[in-house]
């Protein structure tokens, strides 16, 4: 046997071993997952817990199969499929588990884009709030147009640390006339406290609906930058007592936020000084 033939043989053997291992490994994983789903709904508690543990160890690749198993009519299976999915997502959110997080995020987005029952999609949206990243934003922005799921999508976007999440909420706010939905979106922008969300909130100060105006006042206190504070002073100077009081509270929130930054301490001090003068008079 020549050296070349020897090398070819070795390569062939290695490939064969890989293929054989793959043959057993991949199908056995599939078989294992299916065989573990049924015990999740078993009346025997130890079987359920064993299946839960085994599926958790499989990681995010079994997430979609777990969502398929979430049948509200099969109560125990539904409960344990949810418990298992939640644990897998939390594990994927651990520091240093980036590949698992990416995989879990993809699986959740896939569920959100598919035709699952309402409760199942809602559950996927809520799990996405825990680990979602900028990659989820375009899909969540679409869900903001869906009246059934938009509220949960809004809450999920609040949690995602990305300017694109702010932009999607801004776009939704600009596109709605529904005062209740406006309040929801303004509250979300306030929660995020991102100056990129300021512009439509400023506009909402002029809204004909009082609740929208009050939401905008509160949100500006949390965005807490110079332009927000200027707008709040204008509200504060008006005669409307409820808006003035809300503006006072928002200004104080802004001052507290600003006082955490050495660069903004002077601006915070100005707010305290002016409100104190008003308090004395």
């Amino acid at each position, binding site marked *: 046997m020549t050296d070349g033939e020897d090398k070819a043989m070795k390569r062939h053997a290695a490939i064969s071993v890989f293929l054989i291992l793959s043959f057993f490994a991949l199908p056995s994983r599939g078989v294992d997952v299916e065989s573990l789903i049924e015990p999740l709904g078993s009346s025997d508690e130890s079987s359920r817990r064993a299946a839960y543990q085994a599926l958790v160890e499989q990681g995010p690749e079994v997430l979609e199969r777990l969502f398929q198993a979430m049948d509200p009519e099969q109560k*125990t299976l539904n409960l344990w499929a949810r418990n298992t999915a939640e644990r897998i997502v939390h594990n994927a959110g651990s520091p240093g588990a980036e590949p698992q997080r990416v995989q879990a995020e993809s699986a959740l987005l896939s569920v959100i884009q598919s035709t699952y029952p309402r409760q199942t999609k809602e559950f996927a949206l809520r799990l996405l709030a825990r680990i979602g990243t900028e990659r989820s934003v375009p899909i969540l922005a679409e869900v903001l147009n869906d009246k059934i799921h938009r509220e*949960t999508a809004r809450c999920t976007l609040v949690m995602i640390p990305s300017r694109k999440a702010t932009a999607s909420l801004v776009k939704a706010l600009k596109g709605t006339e529904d005062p209740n939905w406006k309040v929801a979106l303004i*509250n979300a922008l306030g*929660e995020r406290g991102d100056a990129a969300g300021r512009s439509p909130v400023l506009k909402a100060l002029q809204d004909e609906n009082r609740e929208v105006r009050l*939401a905008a006042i509160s949100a500006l206190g949390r965005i807490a930058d110079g332009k927000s504070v200027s707008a709040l002073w204008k509200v504060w100077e008006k005669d409307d007592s409820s*808006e003035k*009081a*809300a503006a006072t*509270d928002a200004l104080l929130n802004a001052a507290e936020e600003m006082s955490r930054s050495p660069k903004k301490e002077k601006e915070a001090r100005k707010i305290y000084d002016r409100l104190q003068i008003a*308090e004395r008079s």
Partner: protein
Amino acid sequence: MGGIPMSVRITRRWFMKQAFRSAGLGICITGSSAWARGISPNDKIGIGIVGVGGMGTQHLRVLLRNPGAHIHAVCDVDQARRDEGKARVDDAYRNADCFSCNDFRDLLEQPGIDAILIGTPDHWHIPISIAACKAGKDVYSEKPLTHTINEGKALIRVVQRYGRVFQTGTQQRSSREFRFACGLARQGKLGKVHTAELHLPTGGSTGWVPDTDPPPGLDWDLWLGPAPWAPFNQARHPGGFRSFWDYSGGALTDWGAHHADTAQWGLGTDDTGPIYAEGIGVLPADGIAETFDTFNVTLTYANGAKIVTKHPEHGVRFIGSAGWVHVWRGGIEAEPADLLRETVEIDNEQITMDPTKQQDWRVWASPAHHQNWLQCIRTRKRPVCHEEIGHRSITVCHLANLCMRLGRKLQWDPVKEEFVGDDEANRYLFRPYRPPWRL
């Protein structure tokens, strides 16, 4: 949520505090917190009660017996409970004057109400507390005080900004046995205290119940309030809300709120918290309950002391290098037993369990939890379980739940009140409210 009545003024003390924080300099303020109405010793304190179910009714009974308080109004989203609450008050006062309403915002606008007591499900404690403080009311809120850690931070800001008197309903602080046990721990009578065991009941499971329409007379949307929308289910109301994460933290924040508060008191950590949380929780085997059935958590403080959860006894056991004391509702044990003959000092008060050394319990700062609150409303002092203590104590329970939910050891920074190096855990510090509610 509505704005703040213009009659409510920001406290001078709060302004001073913020000014010092902001600029590091003192400033001259001549104004006063004139808004705080003085209540003379002969005046009755006007009370409104929000939530008159199980715990709310117990509070109502206690306050009806208190000569220093007068219940003007009751509020509940469940009409049957509301009507029953009003009937109790009217029967006690022999009139029909008690105002009753579905929405707490209507109660806050009633004249004559100085303070409110909150006995609602857990997820409502903070939204109502904050609205009440902004409306110029003093507050007693049932435990667990908060549903998320950031709710507690927001509450502290509002209570202090508006100069309100706030009491958390962790009444073991007003118990002689618990006070004594904490005194033993704090004064070194147990040697170096290394462990506080929280002995807690299990959470149990809730059987499967189908969703239905809400029963007549129940304002289900307002019951849900800031929580995500969910169909009505009898497992959630009445009474089962503690099995669901959207409304509660389960057994750990229910009884844990009491015992973690005692542990924090005895360990001398009222103004801080653990730095690590680690544990395993077991989910209910079946039914629709979500919160943990059993749990085994260890929370570690910067000085090495630990809080450890145990089932199924009740109470708190402080274990030190020279002995232990175990205290529960109605009893106390110690090893060596002679520890129970000690006289200890805690919070500037001396206390003994020795029957040969009788003490006048009534002269202590908090002979009874409601009484302490009412007294502080008159004096404008801070109650024994004020907002910061309540927040720090329940934070211990939230950390315990979170390390189990996330399935990993968590590092906590008790100064910044953030998890260290764990973005996902930090997302659990708050939750967006369902509109129109906001924090």
